[in-house]
């Protein structure tokens, strides 16, 4: 009786761990003993065998597990040579790989640069980890609004009363003003950004002074500090600038200041850019109400003590305002200063996201593009594997281990990746200027320690990703089958390869749909009827020199008003100007809320905040806003200053019927409603349209003028002349309203431009892969096609046969991509209060595009194959 074989697992284990030169003897001896025991007792024999194997598991018998025992320098050179020869022999697939990978890597690197730059915004402060901004929540009847404006005296109170707060400072950033201020010295006028800071600013924020001392220079109210750039621009050198007296003018602030410090330019990745620093007291002097608790204008920053718990501090300061000012309904919370840039969208009084979503989105896109590029590599190398099977077979029979072969393929993918990286770096260098242009950034390809680490990481990741499948797949073939030519592509291999193509096209399709949706939404936003005519509408600020001796200069009917009115008349009489008006607030910015409107009897008071527009005569006409009822402010009526105009939303919110002629109270004063205007969008379409009120203010120093579109440039030239005649030397700085409006959507514009570019790249890379695959398949099936043709197949039939494969894959990709892209785009659209609805044809167009692109890609190859002369391809056999 022949005994059955010894326990399989134990034997496998023995073969796995045992040294090869000992294995035969040990296995033989163990088997012999096993066979002897087997005659007595099967079970005992098995037990003894297993025990015997385990007893052998000791250092003397265990083989070396060093990964590549035979991988020597010679092997390395040999592999390099083989790789090089392969590149030479199959140039097309090498170049497809190189092009695909380098395009993918270039995209990834650009996105990496962009993302890392986004993440670094505002992190330049040394004490960044403890630097927080105080945010204010306005609890109103229609929800919570969050703003950065806080009470003017909050900083000092927080520093004094909250123990965790080490220091606090009030800052009025330059962006608080709509327009830049004007700095002048000896008839040199320059527009500049002015920021007001209170005393502890430089104990919280980082910054360096070239001249002067950052902590003491600004103590004097008449002292200012200017940036290095501005100093050089105005005075040629920083040394010359020190001590000079300049005059500075910005709405509400005007006067002469002495330059007491020159600071290094603010880093480009800071959100608050400024050229001039002024003492915060000057800002307060112009606005005495800021010394009260009810106000909210400057930003407040605090530096927490080491180890302070933000949550606890948040609890303490939540009702800080209420404790000072009983009727307030505002609450405070802290947000990391450097987080505000990325998490700048608030819902229900808490940050819920913002730019971080774009950062994540592009990060994901980068990874997907890289994967798509790697998929090309995998597909091409496995598809062409049959050409290399013999090589592998021979290598294996002459003793190459699997790990050795795997290493060879990794080496190959590493070489391709490395070459692609070089090309990609070159591409990035070429593209960076355009990329910076689109994104509005100042990215540069510098090689810091971190960046080199990241790049090596990307190379390694790509090598492993691209090389893993071919390495595993190719190294697993059995030499006997390969050398006998028995090997057939198994179903699972085909499945994987097709799956990869499906994946590529799915990603491309999702990107196409996303691009379409983003584009449509932006278009919608830009063409949406805003309730006023945006075209050819420009605005600029009037520059009127104050006269210190004139006591009623700014008063009603004073010199300021007279000058503004006379200038406005001149503007109106300028040929090419259709109409003009003046106003106080800007249209596309943040208007904040104005409370204190009382439309009910008694003391009952609803908390509705209104956007406050102080406008001159003819403003509504100039803007092209439609009146729903009543009339506009008019010079024909005396005392229109005590009257008021609302928008329709405001009337609805207040619940007034037949509003015209009714009287409401604003800050206790009675105001008669003389008109209702149709709703117009004065904010970005992210927000729902809010209630708005208009008051007459003939002293507005901003001029809004509608220009005849036909003679626009001539008219602007005339306006400039007029402006210079009025205020010589001052730069004429005008803007078009539609540009302002477009800038509200700058982020979306950038995203849309970038997504178009990256979607294009992804599709391009996918197509490269498909192209490679198609040319290869067509070549391999040449004989089949020849035979078919001999048997009577026509060209059309062959084209259909060859392209149906790809069509199927693309269709599967489309089926998967539709719901996915639907979900993703819906998520994005939820950011907008006014948005397009998704149309079925978006998906149709995307699907059609994907199919067309796929067909076009394979067309040349398929046609060439279909046209082949059977004699040529079959002649040799």
């Amino acid at each position, binding site marked *: 009786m022949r005994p059955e*074989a*010894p326990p399989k697992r134990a034997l496998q284990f023995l073969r796995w761990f045992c040294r090869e030169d*000992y294995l*035969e*003897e*040990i*296995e*033989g*001896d*163990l*088997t*012999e*003993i096993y*066979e002897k025991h087997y005659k007595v007792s099967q079970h005992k024999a098995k037990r003894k065998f297993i*025990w*015997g194997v385990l*007893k*052998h598991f*000791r250092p*003397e*018998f265990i083989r070396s597990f060093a990964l590549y025992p035979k991988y020597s320098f010679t092997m390395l050179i040999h592999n390099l040579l083989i790789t090089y020869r392969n590149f030479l022999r199959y140039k097309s697939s090498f170049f497809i790989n190189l092009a695909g990978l380098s395009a993918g890597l270039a995209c990834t690197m650009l996105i990496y640069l962009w993302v890392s730059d986004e993440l670094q915004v505002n992190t330049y402060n040394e004490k960044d980890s403890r630097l927080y901004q105080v945010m204010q929540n306005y609890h109103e009847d229609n929800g919570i609004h969050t703003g950065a404006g806080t009470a003017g005296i909050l900083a000092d109170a927080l520093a004094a009363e909250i123990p965790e707060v080490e220091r606090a400072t009030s800052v009025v950033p330059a962006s608080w003003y709509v327009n830049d201020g004007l700095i002048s010295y000896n008839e040199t006028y320059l527009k500049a950004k002015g920021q007001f800071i209170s005393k502890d600013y430089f104990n919280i924020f980082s910054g360096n002074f070239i001249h002067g001392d950052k902590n003491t220079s600004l103590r004097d109210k008449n002292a200012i500090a200017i940036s290095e750039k501005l100093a050089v621009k105005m005075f040629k050198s920083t040394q010359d600038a020190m001590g000079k007296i300049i005059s500075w003018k910005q709405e509400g602030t005007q006067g002469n200041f002495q330059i007491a410090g020159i600071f290094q330019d603010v880093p480009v990745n800071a959100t608050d850019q400024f050229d001039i620093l002024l003492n915060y007291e000057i800002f307060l002097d112009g606005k005495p109400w800021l010394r009260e608790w009810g106000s909210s204008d400057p930003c407040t920053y605090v530096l927490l003590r080491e180890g302070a718990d933000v949550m606890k501090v948040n609890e303490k300061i939540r009702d800080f305002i209420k404790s000072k000012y009983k009727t307030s309904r505002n609450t405070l919370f802290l947000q990391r200063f450097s987080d505000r840039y990325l998490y700048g969208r608030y819902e229900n009084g808490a940050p819920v996201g913002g730019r971080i979503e774009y950062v994540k989105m592009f990060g994901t896109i980068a990874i997907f593009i890289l994967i798509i590029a790697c998929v090309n590599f995998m597909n091409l190398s496995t598809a062409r594997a049959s050409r290399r099977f013999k090589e592998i077979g021979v290598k294996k029979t002459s003793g190459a281990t699997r790990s050795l072969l795997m290493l060879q393929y990794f080496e190959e993918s590493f070489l391709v990746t490395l070459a692609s990286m070089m090309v990609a770096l070159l591409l990035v260098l070429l593209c960076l200027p355009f990329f910076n242009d689109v994104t509005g950034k100042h990215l540069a390809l510098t090689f810091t320690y971190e960046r080199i680490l990241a790049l090596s990481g990307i190379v390694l990741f790509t090598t492993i990703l691209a090389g893993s499948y071919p390495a595993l797949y190719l190294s697993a073939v059995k030499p006997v089958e390969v050398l006998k030519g028995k090997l057939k592509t198994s179903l699972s291999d085909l499945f994987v390869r097709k799956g990869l193509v499906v994946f590529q096209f799915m990603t491309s399709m999702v990107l196409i749909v996303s691009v379409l949706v983003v584009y449509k939404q932006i278009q919608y936003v830009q063409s949406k009827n805003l309730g006023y005519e945006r075209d050819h509408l420009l605005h600029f600020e009037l520059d009127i020199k104050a006269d210190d001796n004139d006591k009623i200069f700014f008063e009603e009917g004073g010199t300021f008003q007279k000058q503004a009115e006379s200038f406005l008349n001149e503007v109106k009489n300028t040929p090419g100007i259709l109409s003009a008006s003046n106003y106080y607030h800007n249209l596309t910015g943040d208007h904040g809320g104005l409370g204190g409107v009382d439309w009910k009897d008694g003391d009952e008071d609803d908390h509705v905040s209104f956007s406050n527009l102080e406008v001159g005569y003819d403003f509504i006409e100039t803007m092209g806003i439609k009146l729903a009822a009543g009339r506009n402010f008019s010079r024909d009526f005396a005392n229109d200053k005590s009257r008021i105009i609302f928008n329709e939303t405001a009337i609805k919110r207040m619940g007034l019927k037949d509003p015209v002629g009714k009287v409401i109270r604003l800050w206790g004063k009675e105001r008669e409603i003389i008109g209702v205007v149709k709703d117009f969008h004065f904010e970005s379409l992210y927000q729902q349209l809010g209630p708005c009120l208009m008051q007459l203010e003939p002293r507005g120093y901003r001029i809004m003028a509608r220009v005849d579109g036909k003679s626009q440039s001539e008219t602007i030239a005339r306006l400039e002349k007029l402006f210079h005649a009025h205020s010589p030397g001052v730069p004429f700085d005008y803007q078009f309203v539609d540009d302002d409006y477009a800038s509200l959507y700058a982020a979306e514009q950038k995203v849309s431009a970038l997504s178009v570019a990256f979607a294009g790249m992804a599709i391009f890379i996918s197509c490269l892969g498909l192209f490679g695959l198609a040319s290869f398949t067509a070549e391999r099936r040449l004989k089949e096609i020849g035979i078919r043709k001999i048997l009577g197949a026509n060209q059309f039939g062959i084209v259909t046969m060859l392209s149906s494969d790809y069509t199927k894959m693309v269709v599967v990709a489309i089926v998967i991509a539709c719901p996915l892209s639907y979900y993703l785009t819906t998520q994005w659209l939820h950011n907008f209060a006014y948005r397009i609805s998704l149309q079925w044809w978006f998906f149709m167009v995307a699907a059609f595009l994907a199919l067309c692109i796929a067909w076009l890609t394979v067309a040349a190859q398929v046609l060439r194959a279909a046209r082949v002369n059977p004699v040529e391809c079959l002649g040799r056999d």
Partner: protein
Amino acid sequence: MKDHSLGEFEELVLLMVAALHDEAYGVAILENLEEKLEKKLNISAVHVALKRMEDKGFVKSRFGGITEDRGGRRKKFYVITALGKRVLDQQYSLRISIYKQIPKISFT
């Protein structure tokens, strides 16, 4: 200088290799030892001893022919080397000489 030490079990295995002469392979050594010592041994112990002695140069080995038994694995035969024999002789004479120094004491 090579290590010429010889452990107790190694010595037994070496003796057996010498005794079996051309027929000494793992299982044969094991069975003969088990018979002489009248106790069960594990083959791994024999293998360890053989490998160590082969490293020290006391024995040398060669493969036998393929047979149907043993799952088709060849036997590995061991023979004692001149060095092995010398070490064995030394060991033997050392023991004898010390043994002879034992005074004639009666253990009755």
